[in-house]
C-alpha cells in the first residue's frame, strides 16, 4: 500500500490509460476524418510541381476583393450572431423557464428551421420578399437584411436550446435572494442570472458564429447578386474557376477567422465558467406571467410568429397546393415516385429511409465521440498546461463547423482511398456519409453536454472520492446522473444535424443511397411544377421527422427526470 500522497502525485497507470483513451479516440477520429483531408487539400494549393509555392498568398491578398469578402463574412457572422442572441435569449427564458400550455410543441417548432434545407427555405423566403410576394413592401429582397433574418431563422434554435438547457436547471434561489434583497428584476437578471448563463451563451454564440460565417445556400439565394463570403468564394474558386491555389489560401483565411472566433469564445468562457448551483433535475419553472414577463414574451411571440411560423407555414401551405392554386395532396403522393421526368434516381421515401439510417449511425458516433470530448474537457487538472491542453481540445472539435464543406468533401476524395492500408475505398463505399455527418454533429454534442458537466461542483467529485469511491464510481454517481438529460438533447441535436447535413454529404452520397437533403436539392434544381411541389413536400417531411426526433429526445429526458 502506497501512502495517499504518492498516489496523488503519480496516478495509477489504469487511470492514465483510460483518460488517454477517452481523449485519444476522439482525436484519432477527428484527425482521420477532418484534419488529414483538410490539410491534404489545402496543402495541394500550396505545392506546385513538388515544391512549396506561396505566390498564391500574395496574389489573393493583393486583391481588394479578398478583403471585401473577409469584411462581408465577418459582418454577416457578427450580425447573424448578435441578432440570434438578442432574440434567442428571451426565447430560452420563455420556453425553458416558464410554464404554459403548448410549451413542448413550441420547443419542437423552433427546432424545425435548424434542419430545413437552406436552398428550399431560401426560395420560399424569397417568394415572400420578391416583387409580387406578400412581403414585397418591406423592400428587403436580395439584401443583407434578408440574409441576417434568414440566419436568425436557422440558428434561433441553437441559442434557445443551448441557453435554455442550462437555464432550466439553474437554481432560482440565487435570483430570488437578489430580488428579496431589493434588486429590480432587471438588476437581478444582470448581476445574478446573466453571469451564470454566460457559459451557455458563449457556447451558443460560437456555434452560431460558425454557422453564420459558413452559411452557403441561404447567402446565394437571398443575397444581392454577386454577394459573396469567403465560403461562397471557396466554392466558386473550386468549382467554377478550378483554381485550387486561391481556394487553399481562402480556406486558410477561413480557418484563421474561425480560430479567432473560437479563441475569443474560449477566453470569455474561461473567465466565467464556474461551478453553478445546478439542480439535478429540470426545474419546472413558474407559470408564464404576461405582466411580469411581458418583454421576453412579446419578443418571443414576435420571433416565433413572424420569423419562424410564417415562413414554415408558407412552406407547408405551398406544399399543399398545385401549380394552378388548388388544394391538393398530390405533392405528397408524388413522394413515392422519382419525380417529374425522373428527376431522381430513388423515390423520396427511399431517400428518407437512407437519411434516417445514416443519421442514426451518425448520431451514435457523434454522441460517443462528442460525449468523450465533453467528459475529458470538463476535467480540471491542477497543472496549468493541462488546463490549456483541454481548452485547446475543446476548440479543435469546433473547427469542422467553420471549414467549408467543399474543402472537407474534396479533402475526403484525395485522402480516403484505402486509408490506413485498408482494402476499402472509403470514398465510394457510402460509409463516409454518416461519418461526415458525425463530424459536424460532434461540436453540437460537446456544446450541449459540456456546460452542464463543467457546472458540476468539483467538490462533489472530491467528496465522493474522499468517501472511497473509485474514479469510475465518481463518474457513475456524480457526473452521469447530471449528464443523462443533456445527452438526450445531444442525441436529438446530433440526429437533427445529421438529417439536415447537405454540404459534405452531397459529395459522398451515391445515387442509390441519396439522402433527403440531396434529393430535395435535386428536385428544386429541375423545372416543372411537380418537382417544385415535391421539393416543398419533401422539405415538410424532413421538418416533421426532425421535430418528432427532437420531441422524442425531449421526452426521454423529461421521463428520466423522475428517476433521479
Amino acid at each position, binding site marked *: 500500500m502506497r501512502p495517499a500522497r504518492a498516489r496523488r502525485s503519480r496516478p495509477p497507470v489504469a487511470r492514465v490509460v483510460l483518460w488517454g483513451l477517452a481523449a485519444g479516440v476522439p482525436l484519432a477520429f477527428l484527425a482521420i476524418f477532418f484534419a488529414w483531408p483538410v490539410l491534404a487539400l489545402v496543402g*495541394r494549393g500550396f505545392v506546385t510541381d513538388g515544391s512549396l509555392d506561396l505566390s498564391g498568398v500574395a496574389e489573393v491578398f493583393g486583391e481588394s476583393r479578398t478583403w471585401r469578402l473577409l469584411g462581408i463574412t465577418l459582418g454577416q457572422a457578427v450580425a447573424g450572431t448578435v441578432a440570434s442572441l438578442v432574440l434567442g435569449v428571451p426565447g430560452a427564458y420563455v420556453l425553458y423557464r416558464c410554464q404554459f400550455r403548448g410549451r413542448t410543441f413550441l420547443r419542437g417548432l423552433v427546432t424545425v428551421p435548424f434542419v430545413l434545407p437552406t436552398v428550399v427555405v431560401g426560395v420560399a423566403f424569397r417568394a415572400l420578399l*420578391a416583387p409580387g410576394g406578400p412581403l414585397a413592401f418591406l423592400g428587403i429582397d436580395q439584401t443583407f437584411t434578408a440574409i441576417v433574418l434568414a440566419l436568425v431563422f436557422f440558428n434561433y434554435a441553437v441559442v434557445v436550446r443551448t441557453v435554455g438547457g442550462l437555464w432550466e436547471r439553474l437554481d432560482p434561489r440565487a435570483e430570488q435572494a437578489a430580488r428579496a434583497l431589493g434588486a429590480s428584476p432587471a438588476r437581478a437578471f444582470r448581476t445574478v442570472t446573466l453571469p451564470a448563463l454566460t457559459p451557455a451563451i458563449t457556447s451558443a454564440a460560437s456555434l452560431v458564429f460558425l454557422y453564420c460565417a459558413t452559411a452557403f445556400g441561404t447567402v446565394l439565394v437571398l443575397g444581392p447578386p454577386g*454577394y459573396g463570403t469567403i465560403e461562397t468564394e471557396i466554392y466558386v474558386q*473550386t468549382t467554377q474557376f478550378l483554381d485550387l491555389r486561391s481556394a487553399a489560401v481562402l480556406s486558410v483565411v477561413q480557418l484563421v477567422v474561425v480560430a479567432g472566433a473560437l479563441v475569443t469564445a474560449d477566453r470569455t468562457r474561461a473567465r466565467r465558467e464556474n461551478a453553478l448551483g445546478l439542480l439535478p433535475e429540470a426545474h419546472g419553472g413558474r407559470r408564464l406571467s404576461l405582466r411580469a414577463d411581458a418583454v421576453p414574451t412579446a419578443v418571443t411571440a414576435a420571433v416565433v410568429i413572424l420569423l419562424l411560423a410564417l415562413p414554415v407555414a408558407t412552406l407547408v401551405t405551398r406544399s399543399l397546393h398545385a401549380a394552378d392554386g388548388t388544394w391538393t395532396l398530390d405533392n405528397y403522393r408524388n413522394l413515392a415516385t422519382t419525380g417529374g421526368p425522373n428527376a431522381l434516381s430513388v423515390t423520396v421515401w427511399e431517400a428518407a429511409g437512407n437519411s434516417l439510417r445514416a443519421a442514426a449511425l451518425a*448520431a451514435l458516433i457523434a454522441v460517443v465521440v462528442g460525449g468523450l470530448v465533453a467528459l475529458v474537457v470538463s476535467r480540471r487538472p491542477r497543472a496549468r498546461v493541462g488546463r490549456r491542453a483541454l481548452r485547446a481540445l475543446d476548440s479543435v472539435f469546433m473547427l469542422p463547423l467553420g471549414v467549408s464543406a467543399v474543402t472537407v468533401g474534396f479533402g475526403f476524395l484525395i485522402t480516403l482511398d484505402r486509408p490506413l492500408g485498408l*482494402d*476499402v475505398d472509403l470514398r*465510394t463505399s457510402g460509409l463516409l456519409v454518416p461519418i461526415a455527418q458525425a463530424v459536424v454533429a460532434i461540436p453540437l454534442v460537446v456544446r450541449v453536454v459540456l456546460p452542464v458537466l463543467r457546472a458540476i461542483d468539483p467538490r462533489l467529485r472530491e467528496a465522493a472520492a474522499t468517501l472511497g469511491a473509485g474514479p469510475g464510481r465518481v463518474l457513475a454517481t456524480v457526473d452521469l446522473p447530471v449528464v443523462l438529460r443533456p445527452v438526450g438533447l445531444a442525441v436529438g441535436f446530433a440526429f437533427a444535424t445529421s438529417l439536415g447535413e447537405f454540404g459534405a454529404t452531397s*459529395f459522398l452520397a451515391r445515387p442509390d443511397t441519396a439522402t433527403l437533403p440531396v434529393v430535395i436539392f435535386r428536385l428544386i434544381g429541375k423545372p416543372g411544377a411537380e418537382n417544385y411541389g415535391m421539393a416543398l413536400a419533401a422539405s415538410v417531411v424532413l421538418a416533421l421527422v426532425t421535430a418528432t426526433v427532437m420531441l422524442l429526445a425531449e421526452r426521454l429526458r423529461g421521463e428520466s427526470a423522475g428517476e433521479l
Partner: protein
Amino acid sequence: MRTTITTRSVAASGAVLALALTGCASSDTGDAEGSSAETGSSSVTLVTHDSFALSDGLLDEFTAESGYDVELVAPGDGGTLVNQLILTKDSPLGDAVFGVDNTYASRAVDEGVFDPYLSSALPESAAAEVPAGESLTPVDRGDVCINADLAWFEENDLDAPTTLDDLADPAYQDLLVVTNPATSSPGLAFLLATVGAKGEHGWTDYWTALSENGVKIADGWEDAYYVDFTGAGGAGDRPLVLSYATSPAFTVTEDGSETTTTALLDTCFRQVEYAGVLAGAENPDGARELVDFLVSRTVQEDIPGQMYMYPVDGDAALPDEWAQFAPLADDPFDVDPAEISAHRGDWIETWTATVLG
C-alpha cells in the same frame, strides 16, 4: 409507469440504432466486395452526376452482355465533377465517367484525367459533337436558352422576343432574369452564348446594353426560375428567364395539348455531355464497354425519358411531344472548348465587373 415508458423508448431507439447499424453494415460489405481486388474485374464503376438515370433493367442488360456489374458514384456535377476528377487522377474514383460537358472537358483533358477513348460504336450522325483530340465520346446534348412565359406576353399584348438583340431592346425593359456565371452552370453557358454570338470583343458591350435594359441577376437557377420568373407558378415579375430548351416540356398543360412557356431558340448555347475512360482505371476494358453501351441505340433512346437530354445519336427515336414542345436549336452559338478552358476565369471576372460593377 415512468420507468416503463423510459425503458420502452430507450429500447425503441436502441432498436432503431441497431437496425441502422445492420443496414449500413450489410450495404458496406456489399461495397467492399464490389471494390475489392479479387472481384474487381467483374464490376465496373461509373463516376457520374446525380441526374444519371436509366430505365430499370437497362444496366442489367449490360451486365448480362458484358459480365460486369455497374457501380455508380455521383460526387458532383459540372465543375465540381471535373475538379474532383483532376484531384483524384492518381487514385481514380472509378473506371469510366459520364457527364463531363464541353464547357469543362478540355480542362480535364489537359490535366490527363482520361485514357483517350472514342467509342467505335458512336453512330455517324454524332460525328459533329466529337471533341477535338477525340479523347472522349459524346453521349447526349441539350441547349441552354432564354425561356419566355407565353401567357404573360399574350396578356400584355406584346410579341415575345426572339433574338439576343431583342433582349436589349427597350420594349423588353426589366423583363429578363438570368443567372450569375460565377455560381451557376446555365449562367456560364449563357455567357458563352453571348461570347459566341458577339465575339470576344463585342460581348461586354452586349452585356452593358442588357444591364441598361434592366436585366436582373440571380445567383442560382432555382432562384431565378421559381421566384423571379412569372411562368413557374410563383409570383415573379420577369416573363423571360434563363433555362433549358427542354424546360417548356415541364410546363405542358394538363390536357397535354400545349405548353405555357417556350424556349427562344436563337439565344441558345449547346451543351454536350461526354463519357470517357479514366486514366489508371482498374477495369479499363469494362469502362470501354460501358462507354460503348452508353452510345448504343437502346440507351440513346432511353436518355430523353430518363435524363431529359437529347441523345447524341441523331437517328434515335424521340418522344413525340419533344418535337412539339422541346426542340433543339437549329443553330446554337458555340465557343471552341480550348478557348473556354483558356478564358473561363477572365470572362467570368470581366462579366462580374461589367454587370455587377
